[in-house]
C-alpha cells in the first residue's frame, strides 16, 4: 500500500509539523502523603517534522512530559512552546482549541468512544478540527490503515490491534502538527505493534508531522530521529539518529 496519508485530509489541508520547545519545565503534584516532583527542569527542543522517542523507567516522568506537551496539564514551572503558541501559559479553553487542530493523541489504551462506530470515532476528530463531516474522506484513511471494512463497527466488535489502528486514524485524520503517542504499542502483540509503529512513522514522513513517542521499547525508540532518556524527572541523555 503506497497511498499518501495526506490525500485523505479535509479542506483544512496539510499542517506542517510544529516545533516543540520546552524550557525549564517542572511539574509537582501532591500524592496522598507527599509532594512528588514528576519533572525537574526539563529543557528540550524538537524541530518540526522530527520524530522523538522518550525512554526511561516507569515513573521517570515520560507521560507527564507528554501531557504537558499536549496541553492536557499545566506545568508548575517552565514553558512549553508549540510553534508560536506558549501552551503552558494558555487558558484551558485555548488549549482545548489548540488540541483540536494541532495535536493528535495515541495512548496505550485506545480510548475510543464506545457509542460511536469506527468511522464516527475518526470523523468526530475531523469535525472537531473544523473539517467537513464527509465519511468519504475518512474512508480513504481507514482503507490505508486496513480497517476500511470495519467502518461501521463499534469498538467492542474489534480486536485490540484493530482498535489501536482506529485510534491512530483518529489521531491523524485532521493532519495534526504534532502527534503524541504514549506507549502506543503497550497492549499489542508484536505484529500489531509493528503495524501501528509503521503507520505512525509513515504519517510522520509523509505529512511532516512532529512525532513524540513515549515508550519502554528500545527497538521502537531506535526507529525515531531523536531519543531522549529520562530518569527521576530529568533528561539524562539524548541521542540524535540520522
Amino acid at each position: 500500500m503506497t497511498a499518501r496519508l495526506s490525500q485523505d485530509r479535509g479542506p483544512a489541508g496539510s499542517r506542517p509539523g510544529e516545533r516543540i520547545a520546552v524550557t525549564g519545565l517542572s511539574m509537582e503534584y501532591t500524592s496522598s502523603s507527599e509532594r512528588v516532583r514528576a519533572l525537574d527542569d526539563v529543557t528540550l527542543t524538537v524541530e518540526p517534522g522530527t520524530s522523538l522517542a522518550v525512554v526511561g523507567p516507569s515513573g521517570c516522568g515520560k507521560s507527564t512530559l507528554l501531557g504537558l506537551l499536549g496541553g492536557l496539564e499545566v506545568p508548575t514551572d517552565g514553558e512549553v512552546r508549540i510553534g508560536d503558541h506558549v501552551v503552558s501559559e494558555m487558558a484551558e479553553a485555548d488549549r482545548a482549541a489548540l488540541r483540536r487542530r494541532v495535536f493528535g493523541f495515541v495512548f496505550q489504551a485506545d480510548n475510543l468512544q464506545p457509542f460511536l462506530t469506527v468511522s464516527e470515532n475518526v470523523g468526530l476528530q475531523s469535525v472537531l478540527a473544523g473539517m467537513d463531516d464527509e465519511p468519504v474522506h475518512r474512508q480513504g484513511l481507514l482503507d490505508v490503515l486496513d480497517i476500511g471494512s470495519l467502518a461501521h463497527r463499534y469498538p467492542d466488535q474489534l480486536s485490540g490491534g484493530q482498535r489501536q489502528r482506529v485510534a491512530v486514524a483518529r489521531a491523524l485524520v485532521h493532519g495534526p502538527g504534532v502527534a503524541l503517542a504514549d506507549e502506543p504499542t503497550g497492549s499489542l502483540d508484536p505484529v500489531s505493534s509493528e503495524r501501528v509503529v509503521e503507520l505512525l512513522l509513515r504519517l510522520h514522513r509523509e505529512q511532516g508531522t512532529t512525532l513524540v513517542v513515549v515508550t519502554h521499547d528500545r527497538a521502537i525508540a531506535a526507529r525515531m530521529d531523536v531519543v531522549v532518556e529520562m530518569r527521576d524527572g530529568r533528561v539524562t541523555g539524548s541521542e540524535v539518529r540520522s
Partner: protein
Amino acid sequence: MTLVLFVLWDLVRNPRRTLASLVGVIIGVGLFSSVLFFIDGSGASMTARAVAPLTLDMQRVLTAPLGGGIRLQQRLGADALDAGATTLVTLTVHNDGLAPANEVVVRDRAIPPLVYVPGSTTLDAKPIADVGDSIPLFQGYAGFGLNLGTVEPASAHTITYRVRAEQSIARTADLPVQATISTREMLTPTSAAAPRPTSLGQLAEQVGRLPGIQAADPLVFVDMASGSISAHGMSVPGLTKLFVFDATYQTNYPSIRILSGGFQPGEVLISEETARALEIGKGDDVTLTLPGTAAPITLRVGGVTDLSSAKPLFESRQAGSLETFQYVPYTMVVSDDIFRRQIAPAFDEAAAGQGTHVSSLPVEELDILVDRSLLNADPATAVTETQAIAAAVLGTASGQDYLIDNISNTLLVAEGDAAIAKRMFEYLGLPAAILAAILTAYAGTLLASSQRRENALLRVRGASRRHLLSLLSLRTVAIAGVGALLGTAMGFGSVLALLGRSVLLSAATGALVRSALIGLVGGMLVTAVALWVPGRRLITREIKQELAVIPRRPVSAWRRLHLTLVVLVGAVVAQLVALRLGAFDVPAGSVYAGRSVSLPLQLLGPPIVAWLAGTLLIAYVLQIVIERVAKGEHTPRLHRLLPSVLWRSITRRIGAMTGGVVTTALVVGLGAALVCFTTVYDSAKSADARFLAGSDIRLTPNPTSGAPHPTSLASRFLVDGVSGATPVVYSLENAVLTSAFNEDVATLAAIDLHTFGQVASLQDSWFLGASADQMMAALRDHPDGVLVNAALADGLKLVPGDDAKVLYGRGTSQQTRRPATVLGLFTQFPGAPEGTDIVANLDQYQHVTGLKSADLYLLSAADRTSAGLDRALQSLSALTGFGSNFDVQTAAKTLDKDQSSLTALNVNGLLQLDSFYTFLMAVAATAMFVFGLLMQRRREYVTLRAQGLQGWEVRRLVLAESGLSATVGAAIGMLVGVGVASQFVLVLRPIFTLPPPLAIPVPELAILAALVLGAAVLSSAAAALLIGRLKPMELLREE
C-alpha cells in the same frame, strides 16, 4: 483480621465511594424504621383520640333500687353426696327493704352431676306442680323462673326441691350457684351468692381505692312529674329531673357549670331554666313536690347551674339510645344528705304504698373515671389496662349491679382500627421500601463496578475468588451495618421531628426498642443482600474474564415488555374485578357505632404492582421506540457536534438510560401518588366535616336560652365574613311518613329553598335519577312534595311520583298529617350526622304546622380558611346575645363527632414522612444516576477533552443526558403516580363519609418535578466539577 483491616482502610481511604454506598442504605433503612417508629408514636394518639369524646369511662349501675332490698339464699342439705344419693336444696327469699318487691321471680335448676327429683318442689312447705317433667323454677326452653308475685317488706319465702347425684360429689360447696332472683324493680337477675347490698357511698369508697381509678363518684337521678318544682305559686312548665351529686362530682365533670352560688350544706342548685321559669335565684326558697302522699318540701336555693352541656347527666343510659343527649331543662341538684333524709323516704313510701304509682324510681350509679395516664399506649395495650380495671371494679362488692365499660368498648373498636392502621402504614411505606432496596442495589452495582480495577490488581497479586468474596462480605457487612445504624437513627430523628418528643416517647419503651431492632436488623439484612448480590455477580464475571472487553449486550426490551404487560394487565383486571364486586364499598368505621374501620387492604397489592409494572411498561415502550428510530436514517451528521454526540450516546446506550429513567420514574411516581393522596386526604376530610356540619358554621339555639329563634332570624347572621345563612327545621324523629304499604317514624329536614343551596353544597351523586338542582327545583315548584331517603322509601315501597302522607311537627301541639308526593329519592343529605329521612319545603312546613322556629342555622363563610372562619365567628359573636343564645359548631369541630378513631391517625404526618424520604430518594437516585454515569464514562469525557472538546461542552453533554433522563423519568412518574393515587383513594375511601374524588395538585407536582430536575442539574454541575478535576493523563493511560 488482616482482611478486616484492609476493608476498613479501603472504606476510609475512599470516603466519597463509601458515602455514596451508604446513602442508599441510610435512606432505605431510615424510611423503613421511621414507619415503625411512626406506628409506635401513633398508637398512643389513637388511644387518646378514641377515649377523648367519652363522657363517662365506666358506669356501675346499681340494680338494687329503693324498695328492692330483696335477696336470695341457697343451701344444699348435704356437704358431700354419694352417687345416687339425694339431698334437699333450700332457696330462701328475704325482703329486707322498706317497700314490697313486685313480680319476684326465682330461677334455678339442677345441673349435672345433679338431677332434679320430679315432683319435689315446695313453696313455703306447699308442693308445687312440675311444669312438664321439669322443675317449676326453670320452665321451658327459655328457662322462665317461678313468679312469687309481691314479697312484702320484712317477709320471707322458702322454696325447696330435691336433687339426686349421678356421681359422687366430694364437696357440694364447690358446685356453681345457679339460682337467681329478679323483680320488677330489679330487672337484672341477682345471684343467690350475691353479698348483701353495699351502699352507693361505700361502693364509691371501695372502687375509688382501686389502682387505675382516678375518680369514682356516686350519682343518683330520677325523673319527676311535670311541674314538680315550684316557687311563688308558679311551677316549671315541663318534666323535671332531680340529681344527687356533690361538689367532687362537679369538679370531675366540668361540663356541669355553676353560674352563681355553689354547693352549700342544706341548700340545692337549680338550673338556669328553672330559675328563669320560677323567677327565683340564690337565697330564694323552692318547693319540690314528692311522689305519693309525702308533703312537698321547701328547700333553699344555693346556686344556679348551666347543665346544657352536662353530658354525664343527660346522656341516655338506655341500650337503644346509648349516649344520646336527652336534655331536660328543669332540673334540681340536691345533696346526698337531703336526698336520703327527705326525698328517698318519699319514694320508698310511694313505691310501697298500695294503689300509688311511681312512674320512675331513682337510679343509683357510680360514675368512674379511669386514670388516663395509664392509657398512654396503643389501643390494644390500653384496652388490656381498662379491662383489668373493669374486672377489679366489678369484683368489688359484686353481684348487685352491672358495669357499663364504655372505655373498654371504645378501645376495642380502636384496637381494630389500630390493626388496620398498622397495615395501612406498612402499605404506604412499602413502595418506598422497595425503592430503597432498588437504590441500595444500584449503589451496590456502582460500588462493585468501581472496584473492578482493585479486584483485578488483587487477583494479579494472587487473591482467589474466595478472598475477593470474603472482602466483599466484610465490606457489605460494614456498609450495611453502619448504614442500618445511621438509618435507624435517622428514622427515629425524623419521626421525633414530625410527631414531637412528647408523642413519640409516650409509646412503650419496649415497642420503640422492638422497632429499632427490627429496623436495624431487618434493614441490615435487606440492604446487605442488595449490596452483596451485584458485587458477587461482578466478581464472578471478572473471574470468568467476561469483562476483558465490554460487550454490547442486546437489550431484550421486547421480552421485558411482554412480561411487564402481563403483570400490569393482571393488576388492572384484579382492580376492576374488585370494583365490580364492590370490594371498596365497605361501611365507614365509627367509635360511636362500635365499628372498626374495614379497609380492603388485600386490594392494596394491585396498585403497587401497577406502579412498578406501569413504570417499566412505559419505559420499555419508549426504549423500543427510540431503538427503532435510531435504526432508521435519522442519525444526525457529526458537524452538529453536541446534538449528534448526544443523540448517539443516548440512542445507542438506551438500556443504560432506561435504568436511570425507571429509577427516577419510580421515585417520582411514588412521590406524585403521595402528593395526590395527601391533597385528596385533606380535601376529603374538609369535605366530610362540611357535609356533617351542613356548612362552614352551624348555629344551634342554646337550650338554656329563652330567646325566640324564628327562621327569619337567619338574615341577621349575614355579617362580615358570612356569605350566606339558611334556617333549617331538623330534629330526630320529628315526622311520620305513611305510604300505602306501611308507615314509619322519620327525621325530617325542612329547608329554605331560596337560601339552602347557596349555603350547603349539594352533590348530584346524592340524588337518584336527577341532579341536585333538579331536585331542589322540584321541591320549590311542588311545595307539598317531599324528597325521601332511598332506604326509607325502599322500606315503605315508595317510588318517585307516589302519594304519601307526612305527619309534620311530630310531638308538638301543632303536629299535622298532610298528603305529600314523593318528588325524588336521595342517599345522603348534608348537615345531619344522624341521618335525614325526609327533606321538605320550609315554607310548606311552616304553612301547615304554623311553627315558625328553626332548629338550626347553617352559615357559609366568605373565606373558608381558618382565618376566614375566625373572622366570621368574630363578627357573629359581636351580635347582641349571640354567645348566650347559640351554640356554635364549625366544620372542624364536627369532624370529631362520629368518625372512626382511624381519623385520629396522623395520616398526613405519615405522608409527610414518606414524602420527605421520597424527595431524599429522588435526589439520591438522580445523583446516583449522574455520578454513576460519571464513574462509567469519565474516560470518555476525558478523551473528548483530549480531542479538543471544551469543558463547557463536556458539561453540557453530562447535563443534557442526566436532564433528559430526569425529565423523561419525572414525566413517566407523574403519569403513573396519578394513576396509582386514584387506586390509593379507592382503598382508603371507608375512612371518609363522602367518597373522596381524585385531585391533581399541580403546584405540588410541579415542586416535585422541579426538585428532581434541580437534583439532576445540581448533580450534573457537581459531576462536571469533578470531571474538571480529573487527571487526564492518568485516566487516558489506564488499561
